[in-house]
């Protein structure tokens, strides 16, 4: 046993990258994710429409934050703001009682909004703002009337069902699994078994090798996505209200990014163990920081910026927007744009790295061939 222990330590000492990942990254992840792990919603963005919009704007207490106000607009405008993700709650004034629309696809914001509204209704707002709201409770509202008794409608996820918001995001996680983890293994395996050198001398263009390598994973990921979607819809009753084409385009872009990340990981990994470690390290932040579990607004500002570099953040916005809110592509231009930008950067980087592999090695690149594994040992 002692011989084994010593041998393992010697091997570990030489595999400095693995050692660093084992020690440094867990600490880093714990700190980052510790700040991210929060379900507390401190701010609820609100859009107000109708003749009393300006009256309500400014008197709504925290956690409500009025971000849009349009006195000359009605319910459909307000609803569009929720659909397009510009606000989490909308108040439509002008009727006998104000109508409050809540975006159920923003689960934690919706729950926080309901709690805050209940407080207003019972006049228990700590800020005392209920008294101010009381006056604009309705067309005939008076100081003696109820504190704030609006009509409530929860849109897009009326039952505030967790699976309805998780399944669209989980589609992205499945794509990350196939796109990043499996792809990174596929390419590094080629490198480890020594077949990459064979590919380099065959009459194949680097682009052909790169595409030939990722297309199968792309197809498998697409099938996986279809299965997850079908299961989500059939078993969990998750709605699909939007355009399949918009969803498909988002998934396509997202897949390109994840496949590119997979190839990038494999290009910096010496072996399959390192590739898996790195891939998991990219998966964890995506799951925890992208808004899949914790609302983006609840994540501490110090680490929230990381979310905007993660492709799953944008895919979440697209998948939830399309599936739950039937959001049109025009309203999703931002996540599409950022996903495309990330895709361009990652795929370009991955292609360049791949081209480097297949070009004749020179002394600048460290010309010694990677030692190949015994044939039988390569997975």
């Amino acid at each position, binding site marked *: 046993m002692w011989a084994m222990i010593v041998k393992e330590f010697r091997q570990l000492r030489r595999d400095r990258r693995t050692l660093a990942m084992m020690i440094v990254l867990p600490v880093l992840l714990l700190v980052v994710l510790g700040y991210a792990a929060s379900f507390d919603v401190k701010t609820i963005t609100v859009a107000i429409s109708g003749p009393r919009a300006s009256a309500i704007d400014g008197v709504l207490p925290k956690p409500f934050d009025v971000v849009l106000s349009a006195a000359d607009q009605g319910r459909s405008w307000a609803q569009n703001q929720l659909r397009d993700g510009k606000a989490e709650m909308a108040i439509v004034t002008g009727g006998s009682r104000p109508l409050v629309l809540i975006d159920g696809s923003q689960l934690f914001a919706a729950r926080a909004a309901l709690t805050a509204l209940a407080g207003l209704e019972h006049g228990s707002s700590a800020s005392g703002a209920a008294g101010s709201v009381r006056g604009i409770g309705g067309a005939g509202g008076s100081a003696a009337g109820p504190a704030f008794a609006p009509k409530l409608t929860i849109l897009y996820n009326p039952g505030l069902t967790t699976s309805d918001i998780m399944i669209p995001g989980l589609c992205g996680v499945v794509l990350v699994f196939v796109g990043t983890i499996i792809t990174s293994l596929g390419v590094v395996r080629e490198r480890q*078994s*020594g077949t990459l050198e*064979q590919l380099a001398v*065959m009459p194949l263009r680097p682009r052909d090798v790169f595409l030939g390598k990722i297309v199968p994973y792309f197809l498998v990921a697409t099938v996986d996505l279809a299965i997850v979607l079908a299961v989500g819809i059939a078993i969990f009753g998750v709605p699909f209200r939007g355009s399949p084409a918009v969803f498909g385009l988002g998934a396509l872009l997202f897949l390109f990014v994840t496949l590119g990340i997979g190839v990038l990981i494999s290009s910096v990994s010496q072996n399959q163990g390192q590739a898996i470690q790195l891939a998991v390290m990219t998966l964890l932040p995506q799951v925890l920081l992208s808004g899949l579990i914790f609302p983006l607004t609840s994540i501490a500002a110090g680490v929230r910026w990381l979310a905007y570099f993660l492709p799953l953040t944008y895919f979440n916005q697209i998948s939830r927007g399309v599936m739950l809110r039937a959001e049109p592509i025009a309203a999703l231009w931002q996540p599409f744009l950022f996903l495309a930008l990330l895709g361009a950067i990652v795929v370009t980087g991955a292609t360049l790295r791949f081209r480097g592999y297949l070009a004749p090695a020179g002394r600048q690149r460290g010309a010694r*061939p990677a030692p190949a594994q015994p*044939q039988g040992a390569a997975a």
Partner: protein
Amino acid sequence: MTGHGRPAATEGRAGTGHASYGASDLFVLYGKTVALGGVSLSAPTGQVTAVVGGDGSGKTTLMRCLAGSLAPDSGTIRRPAKERVGYLPASSGLYPDLTVAENLDFRATGYGMSRQVARDRAAEYLDRAGLRSASDRLAGQLSGGMRQKLAVIAAMLHQPELLILDEPTTGVDPVSRSGLWWLIARAAADGCAVVLATSYLDEAERCTSVLVLDAGMPLASGTPDEIVAAMPGTLREAPARPDGQLAALAWRSGGHWRVWDPGPEGGSRLAGTEDGSVLIEPDLQDAVTVAALGMAIAGGAS
């Protein structure tokens, strides 16, 4: 090592009309280590050229330069277009999780062969190499000899003009070696220029020409007969290892000792035959050993 600033060049990319492929004055450095120091090689079509040397002599580096997977620091390489080069790397280049047939199918498709031609040729080669019955087995499950034969078949399947084989027979049993040599001879008979790296001098003796490398430097080159004929001095076989300075010029061969006498230039050190030694005709093994000894002595002297 700074006196070889001439950039590496590749000639003959069009791929036809060359009577000889090879390399001229190749330099390759790994950091400060000279992997190849001014190595030249000629590989005529229809002939088998051997690159011989011990571990770390630069054989694989030379093979990689010829195949195009490694760019030399300077020197010229003459090889046909990629489609006309066949390469067996030291790692065999096979996919262990593909079957024999699937490995060959991938190679045939990659080189743009027609399905029928590829199938017929693979069947013939597999038959001759005794692998026909294993065509559905995974390459990773083949024995070492079978795997090497498959790797050679994969490298020559598209009938290249230049076939580069990096130690195709290392670790292969004598029967499999015979099968491998049939394949190699077949490629040369079809007009291919074959370059193979080997550690076995008995194999090198079967080749048309031989390049001997030692620590990245050319030690000897020519036909096996030319290399033997060029050996300086004489060779004796002695029953025991000589004493004194001669011990450095002796090596064991079979049950006897071979002692190199550097000859007139080095001064004859064998006073007579009282020690029971007899003059013998050197073979390629002896000539290469003598060349290595000569280089070591020259290096020590300088």
